């Protein structure tokens, strides 16, 4: 089985080097201030600032949705999402964005939302009152 061991050894070596290389693909969730500082592509997580305005006017540009998030440090940041407004966006609590800082806005290409609506068993639905 010697040759197989050699090949397995090579594979392990390759795997280890791949894992080292893959470190470049990883990032931590950046805070807004870090995103501003680095300017490179990062992931940020924050609460959707529901008290701030959300603008989506498809007649103007269907790929432009702006809103604000607030991160754990309490900083507020304007976000420009290069996509149509995701469905049920205003219901989401936490959003995770991938993108980079450009001038005063965080330009995001990907968004993941955590919707409390998924925890739907907290509600009891009643029949509509006929009348």
């Amino acid at each position, binding site marked *: *089985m010697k040759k*197989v061991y050699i090949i397995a050894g090579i594979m392990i070596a390759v795997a280890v080097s791949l894992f080292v290389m893959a470190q470049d693909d990883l990032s931590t969730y950046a805070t807004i201030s870090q995103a501003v500082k680095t300017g490179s592509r990062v992931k940020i997580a924050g609460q959707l600032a529901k008290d701030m305005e959300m603008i989506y006017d498809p007649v103007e540009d*269907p790929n432009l949705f702006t809103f604000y998030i607030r991160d754990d440090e309490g900083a507020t940041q304007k976000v420009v999402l290069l*996509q*149509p407004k995701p469905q049920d966006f205003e219901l989401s609590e936490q959003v995770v964005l991938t993108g980079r800082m450009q001038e005063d806005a965080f330009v995001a290409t990907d968004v993941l939302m955590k919707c409390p609506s998924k925890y739907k068993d907290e509600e009891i*639905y009643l*029949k509509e009152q006929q009348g």
Partner: protein
Amino acid sequence: MIEEIQYIGEHLWPGRIGQAAVFIAFSAAILSSIAYFFATQKREDVELSHSWRKIGRVGFGIHGLAVFTIIGMLFYVMLNNYYEYQYVQAHVNDDLAFRYIFSAFWEGQEGSFLLWMFWHVILGGLLMLSAKKWESPVMAIIASVEIIIGSMLLGIYIGFGPEAFRLGSNPALLLRDVMEAPIFANAEYVSLLDGTGLNPLLQNWWMTIHPPTLFLGFASTVVPFAFAMAGLWIRDHRGWLAPVLPWALFSGAILGTGILMGGAWAYEALSFGGYWAWDPVENMSLVPWIVLIAGIHTNLIARTTDQSIRATYIFYALSFIMIVYSTFLTRSGVLGETSVHAFTEMGLEWQLVTFIVVYVLLAAYLFFSRVKGIPAPEKEESTSSKEFWMFIGSLVLLFSAVLITASTSLPVYNKIRTFFDPGFVGRVITDPVPHFNKYQLWIGVFIGLLTGFSQFLRFREKNFSSYWKKFLLHTGIGVLLAMVFTYLSTLAINLSAWQYQLLMFSGWFAVVTNVDHIISFLRGNLKVGGSAISHIGFGLMIVGVLFSGLNQKVISRNPFLMEGLTANEEAKRNTVLLIKDSPMIMDEYEVTLTGDSIDYLTRTYYIDYKRRDETGQVVEQFQLEPNILYDKEFTKVAASNPSTKQYWNRDVFTHIAALPPEEMDITEKKAKEDSLDYKTYIMGIEEKLTFLDTVPVKDRDTFLVRSFDLEVLDIQRNAQHKDYIPETGDIAISAWIKVTSSEKDTSFIAKPVLVLRGQVLYSFPDQINPLNTRVKLNEEVFDLVYTAEAELDYQEYVISQGDEVTVGDIKVKFQGFNKDVTLPSYEKQEGDIAVAAMLNATTTDGKTADIEPVFLIRNSKPLNLKDEATEIGLHARFVSINPKDGKATIFMAHQAPRAPKASFSVATRSFRTDWVALQAIEFPGINYFWLGASLMMFGLTISMYHRIRTLA
């Protein structure tokens, strides 16, 4: 003291049966597992072993019946909408169509666990019939798995107080057992309940077929695992290799099909815009499959050469453990924000961890305690043998699985690190798709090449010196043909990087060499060609991935460019606005939104695609019909379903990314209606009016003054509107109003409708989109069109059939009674006695009209319903009949008809609502992917039949 409330309308017996069945299923699985354990341990004593086996069989049979009972009970309460049950309330509602009842059943965690157990029961039954000497050890393992999954349904608390640990989640619990709410103070609460219903995204037939297939795939991996454990347990390291093979092939085919169905669902019915997104949930169903396929390969080596038995043990064990690990990842909530479709937490995390630990420890113990006895030939395979390269292939597959698992498990790693070091900041993969593609590309290259040339090698090669010419010839032909196909592919699509060209080559190499293998080596005998077919499928799948993934083309390219964006970011902006009836040139197509229609909760949009040649002739035309689904209250859009035009070599995929906000959400609609600046006018027919409107010009401090001309063309009493569904008793008025703007030359006619139904007004405004103008009718219009009762001067007439009287200037003839009442304002009720008087009116200038006022006795009270001939101004009420002489008393009045007027409001700054934001993507060669992937599963199935036949 809390008083016990006597609830009314609860159905408690199915719950009691269900609860009992849950405990019986759990206990019987324990019994069966223990009995089979002793049947295996005491296998030297045949008689004792057989009596243990009998207990094991009976135990498993009872377990199976109990599982069927729970499922049956759950279906029963769901079908009958017994909302007092928590599971029913959470997954069903009154509106749910019967065909989605299965989907609703396995939408929840408990239902999907039951589905998993169900398949184990079926597979266990088949094994009891067919496994012969392997039955006892294999069933002991399977029954033990059933104990653990069964415990997920127990729903019992261990310990007391708030610290109590809940074991499992019981699907048969009542709603009032799992939550506290003020409604439970009402003894009749059951009659008030409705269910949450099935998530609209899941209301399609994929949800009916994908989960059972995938769960059969999950469940079937337990069989190779159990055989492997059995082989180690009774130290028969060779005996299990033959009977396990059909099961492993079956599992490979079904699990693969289940995963593919998930991809097909994502591509066809959801708006993911692709079939694979390297989402953790997808990855973790793929990993066990990859490991299983590696196991099948080492299993084949072991069967023919005695090599790789240890590897086969490891792969089959790992495959099942990865299934359990995948269950843990998707159901524990640990994936958190990294996955779009992970379940939420249910308090089962520690049970799931226990599940993994138990089987890792069991497998590790059995393997290491017996590893010395596992046959492993001293002599190494030669590099010119088939088994050597097959083994390398299995290692490459394992390597792929390790890489995927490691990346996907990052959230678990973060959790563990944070546990020991609370200050640790979790890491995430910034862009998962390129990350996975980058590494898996090389796996694809290696596997493609290995599946090609190793087909031409022979097992246990001893005489390669006499064979190498043939080997080189076929491999050489393969290389040449693959190069030709790769070259042709680069003509069809854009393969920029050499890595992609290499992958394309290796995909085609796998295809052509395996076709050659079937022709030259198997002489076309497909019965034994399962592996070649699967490998052709793999190659074709790679080709399809490159074609469709690398060269998917966004047709809906966005005309608005934003400054400062990178090319990749600009490419993400792939939505365009499509206005009704205005064709838009997208790529090579001319795309037009031609209209939409609504059917119950589904709104379908019709998108017309045209392609013209240089002379302007239409050479290709088709219609796509993406739709959106509103939620059950019709207040919001719940789901958007794409539509795809399929050609053999490419797909055109279209989905609706956004609609006007007022079409998406009823609150937006109200807010918008309130925000409009309406001006009210009252005008008669043919009256004209001109008004001015100032419009601020965007981004400039200037205003535009436009003039509008209004003219009422007609007022109609039987109005029609696309959103208005007439009901009997409605009074519906429509005014046709011509609007002309100084901005545009053409005139537009608005036809707003106002409906009075009972006491409720329904307004259907009309929008003139080219003018951004909205017109609605006001309530006053009823008074303007219909004459008020108070203005009328009724006279009493007592008349018999055939009499003629004069009312004002009008001659009215009483033509008799009509028991068949047709007056629109009459709504029939039980016990009514109703009769109409048929009156024929003639004016002095010769106009005639027929009216039929109604006399009615309802609940012993006399009532009358008015009828009128508005055009001539005759009003009549039929108030009584004299039973003696049959004379009717009718009140009639004549009031010269007024010219009707319309009261309406116009808002001139109402933004258009006749558009959709559309995404259109072309996927070239996606059918190579589907065909290839299906061939792979088909090949596995053929091999399975072949192995079953040779086993017998």
